[in-house]
């Protein structure tokens, strides 16, 4: 038995008939072909599958596609605008916030939410916001640098504060 869902993904309206047991991450990757969202553990621990649902970071392996019916979903593919990287993506680029890159999409999506919550996060607030995202390469320091840089860049973009010391 399938159920029809309508979801806006990265600004594009989509409509599909899905089985209720289909996980959101499988829907994004296999039905929509958006493979930027990764599957690490599939057990709600690693955060590689993090996407934004109605602006909130969620682990898409722990949500059913049918639960996202009517929602706005943003994946890593939806962050860049007109060919320019999102400040958090740019932060990861500039600070080399990765080694193997597997956890990166989830880290970036979690980072975007951290900046929604705290315009000027401390390193502790960034670390706390990344508690649900595991990286087995970097030791996290460059990842925190990347998000800290993005916070500075974002302030500069808006013309507030804007001290780009990191």
């Amino acid at each position, binding site marked *: 038995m399938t159920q029809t869902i309508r979801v806006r993904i990265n600004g594009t309206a989509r409509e599909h008939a899905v089985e*209720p047991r289909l996980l959101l991450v499988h829907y994004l990757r296999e039905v929509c072909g958006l493979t930027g969202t990764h599957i690490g553990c599939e*057990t709600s621990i690693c*955060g590689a599958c993090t996407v934004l649902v109605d602006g909130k970071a969620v682990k898409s392996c*722990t949500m059913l596609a049918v639960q996202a019916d009517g929602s706005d979903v943003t994946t890593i593919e939806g962050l860049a605008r007109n060919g320019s990287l999102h400040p958090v993506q740019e932060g990861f680029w500039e600070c080399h916030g990765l080694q193997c890159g597997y956890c990166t999409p989830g880290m970036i999506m979690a980072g975007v939410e951290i900046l929604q919550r705290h315009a000027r996060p401390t390193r502790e607030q960034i670390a706390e916001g990344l*508690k649900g995202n595991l990286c087995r390469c970097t030791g996290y320091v460059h990842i925190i640098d990347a998000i800290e840089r993005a916070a500075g860049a974002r302030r500069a973009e808006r013309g507030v504060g804007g001290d780009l010391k990191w």
Partner: protein
Amino acid sequence: MIPATFSYARPTTIDEAIALLTKHGSGAKVLAGGHSLLPAMKLRLAQPEVLIDIGRIAGLNTIAERDGRVVIGTMATHAEIESSALVARACPLLGQVAARIGDAQVRNRGTIGGSLVHADPGADFPAAILALDAELRLASPRGSRSVKAAAFFEAMMQTVVQPDELLFEITVPKTATSAAYVKSEQKASGFAICGVAAIVDAQAKTVAVGVTGVASKPYRATAVEAALRGRALTPDAVAAAAALAANGVEPLGDIHASPEYRAHLAAVNTKRAILKAVAQG
């Protein structure tokens, strides 16, 4: 990691949800935030035939003040409770506890009601709910009833909620700032190995202590409360009373902590929580 097949219903009112629960009987399960149920279904530890998603019932996540109490809808997420200005003002203990649950993503989806009904022995909210003497309101085809927190938890992962019942709100008294939550957690998930919620009423000279993670179900540390009734809360008096924190319970032992260690943590965290609550008053 794919759940077994089930059918999915999304009622828009409490009555409709109750009618669905009644119709499908024990084959049905309520789906709230899904952060306990979906992992269990992926492991096929749970294989409900019908999922009744209560996530779109209007008003079920409301946090409001009513008759001098704080009323929290069952679908209020941990994140909503953590960031609620009303909670921060009228019952800060709940906000403190919510902020310590899992991680940001878990807090965005997990709900207070789901946590209470699931009754994981390491869940955080039960400690606070017990210390606050919360009331839990349940709806069923027989009407609605109120259950006191002290009577809600029956055993490990078992509460008084019947298969055709829906928890719809939790009400707590407004409490002063003299409250604290101290937990030792399992690092990977955040679940409490021992979590202690303490509320100090300086005027009445009473202390309320809820403990989670230590035993198969959360409990009130009544021996500690009795030892401190009417007493000045000096560090020595608190430490002596806190040593009774695991009195009369059978502490759990698992790969994370032995029963002896859990009992030890119960005493240490009880002392810290009470002293922290005193300092905040």
